[in-house]
């Protein structure tokens, strides 16, 4: 039994085939499917189309596009070494010196990602808060009003307060990222608890659960799909505020770099920083979705889309 995985018969293969679907084989089949199916290639095609359109628009000198750079030039800047690093052939050197060969690019990434990670960790406190709010009506009533009062305040409006409260360079930025993300996580978690069909609470009571067991076995797993939605939104919002925070208070980081590039009129650097943010965000999103697929196996397996 241990070498054969449950649900294996649902996978392709004739029913009488002698193939044993081990975990490893299933993983391989799934990976192969992920990279050979239409969805993947359509995605790739979409990205390529975007860059081609951008390039064409730039070359034809469309209004507002002519002041930008060609994506090919940005790619060149990203991948070529800076002046004096390897050779003296100016055709093989980047002009602005910000890309995969320079330390600054990695430092910016590291600093920003570390800020996001910290902020994100703080914002996860919204999960227990949201669960408690959904569990006990009194907690919800107590917390919800002040919560709704603070929630509409955009992250940017928190900037002065953050700087007054946290006199270091780092903390205000983390605070800004965390606060925006926290609201998204908490409210989605609360929504998740509220979305649980009341029949599950009744069933759990019938089967002799204590209040705590209802929390543990009904509220937590039942709210999980929405928790993940909240976390995904929260992650996006955290990046959003990160750039805002770094523009104002930073000396390093991808957000700071976009602003700095704008000040120095170095459009390729601006693009590199922007797309780096996009790319890291994408990777984090993918990682979270993978985790989600694992935790919410009960939902993915039954064909529900996430």
């Amino acid at each position, binding site marked *: 039994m241990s070498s054969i995985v*449950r*649900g294996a018969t649902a996978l392709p293969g004739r029913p009488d085939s002698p193939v044993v679907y081990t975990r490893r084989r299933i993983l391989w089949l799934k990976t192969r499917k992920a990279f050979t199916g239409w969805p993947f290639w359509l995605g790739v095609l979409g990205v390529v189309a975007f860059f081609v359109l951008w390039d064409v628009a730039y070359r034809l000198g469309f209004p507002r596009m002519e002041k930008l750079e060609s994506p090919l030039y940005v790619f060149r800047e990203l991948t070529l070494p800076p002046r004096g690093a390897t050779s003296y052939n100016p055709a093989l050197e980047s002009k602005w010196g910000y890309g995969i060969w320079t330390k600054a690019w990695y430092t910016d990434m590291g600093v920003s990602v570390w800020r996001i990670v910290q902020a994100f960790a703080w914002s996860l406190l919204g999960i227990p808060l949201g669960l408690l709010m959904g569990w006990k009506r009194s907690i919800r009533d107590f917390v919800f009003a002040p919560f709704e009062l603070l929630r509409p305040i955009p992250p940017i409006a928190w900037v002065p307060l953050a700087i007054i409260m946290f006199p270091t360079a780092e903390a205000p930025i983390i605070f800004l990222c965390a606060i925006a993300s926290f609201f998204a996580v908490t409210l989605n978690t609360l929504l998740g608890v509220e979305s649980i*069909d009341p*029949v*599950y609470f*009744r*069933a*759990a*009571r*019938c*089967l*002799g*659960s*204590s209040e705590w*067991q209802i929390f543990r*076995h*009904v509220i937590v*797993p*039942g709210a*999980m799909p929405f928790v993940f939605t909240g976390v995904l939104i929260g992650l996006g919002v955290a990046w959003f505020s990160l750039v805002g925070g770094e523009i104002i208070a930073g000396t390093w980081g991808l957000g700071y770099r976009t602003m700095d590039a704008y000040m120095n009129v170095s459009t390729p650097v601006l693009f590199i920083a922007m797309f780096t943010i996009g790319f890291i965000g994408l990777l984090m999103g993918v990682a979270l979705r993978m985790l989600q697929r694992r935790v919410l*196996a*009960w*939902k993915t*397996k*039954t*064909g*529900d889309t996430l």
Partner: protein
Amino acid sequence: MKNFLRGVAIFKDLGDDTLARVAAIAEDRRFPRGATVYRTGDPPDFLYVLREGAVSHPPLVGARDAGEGVARHPGELFGLAAVVETMKRRVFTVECLEDSRVCAIPGARLLEILKLEPGTGYAVMQRFAGLMAEAEGRVAARSGGLSIRDAGKIYDPEGIHVVAVENCSFDVPPGGICVVVGPSGCGKTTLLNAVAGFDHLTSGEIRLDGGVIAAPGKDLRPGPDRIVVFQHGALFPWKTVLDNVTYGPVVQRKMSRRDAEAHALTLMGKVGLSGIERQYPGEISSGMRRRVEIVRALINDPKILLLDEPFRALDALTKSVMHEYLLELYDLSHKTIFFITHDLEEAIFLGDVVVVMTTRPGRVKKLITVDLPRPRSYRILSSKRFLELKQEAIEGVHEEALKAFEAGERELA
């Protein structure tokens, strides 16, 4: 006290000294009407002898079947668990149906006194054990008796009076299947919710094995002695089938997870549900989900199983299979079943008693005793007696259906 005890049949051969000792430790107690003498699950301490009044305990030594199943003869014994050493918990809940006077004898001390008198003392102890064994046999068959008396429920949202159920009285015999039929909105589900402990009654009371489980102002306390199988199913979608089935015993700490799993697997094997235990409810068919849910209820050994139109969403073919399946499970366990439906044929096919209810306010319109033999199979559907019963029921229901229709109700019986 001694004179009274002398008159009690079981003590009549005891020596004078012994009886005096017993009388010395016995206490005279009075309980007002409605007071609880002891509850299910209490540790047994006293043996009781009824002196006056009546209590909600099946008679053991007095007149056997007064028809009501309650003790009302002086000299009637109850609370035998106190004198049988293997019993750690009370099985019954005993309440006073009238102002009652009882003689309470501490069980452990009574046994000590009886042991001092070798001949007759031991005879009395043996008689206790005999009575207990006899009672247990009858209690096992008697467990799960539901009695609904004058139940009423008025919903009063924002001052609009809606009488959902009114003056509803009927009994479900222990181990019987009672099917409540009626058009939607007749208060079937209200009644079931009251039994399950999800909702209050506004008048009347419901008793399960003598203990009040629903009455106005009583705490809502759903529990594993009466488990509901819900209309649209309530298997936890985030737990595997096996975790669902073992949920009850594990959260109640009645079994370790390992034992519960072994038990669940045996039970599921017995009813043809092997091989799906590691799957999630979303991965199996709706008919199977319903069966798993019934098993999830039965593993808790409830006194009564409450089924709220459980087969409503199933197609006709699956439904007929599910009926036979349910009856098969019933024949195995003989649990009392309280079944709600709007399908007459289903009601008569499954039930011992069919309760036809009226449209709002929900009242009992007709009680039909189904005398079809068990085990029943689908052949019975075309038998003469079945058709007669159906005709009888239809007459009751049709009138209600018309009323419901006129009242703008969407669904008919």
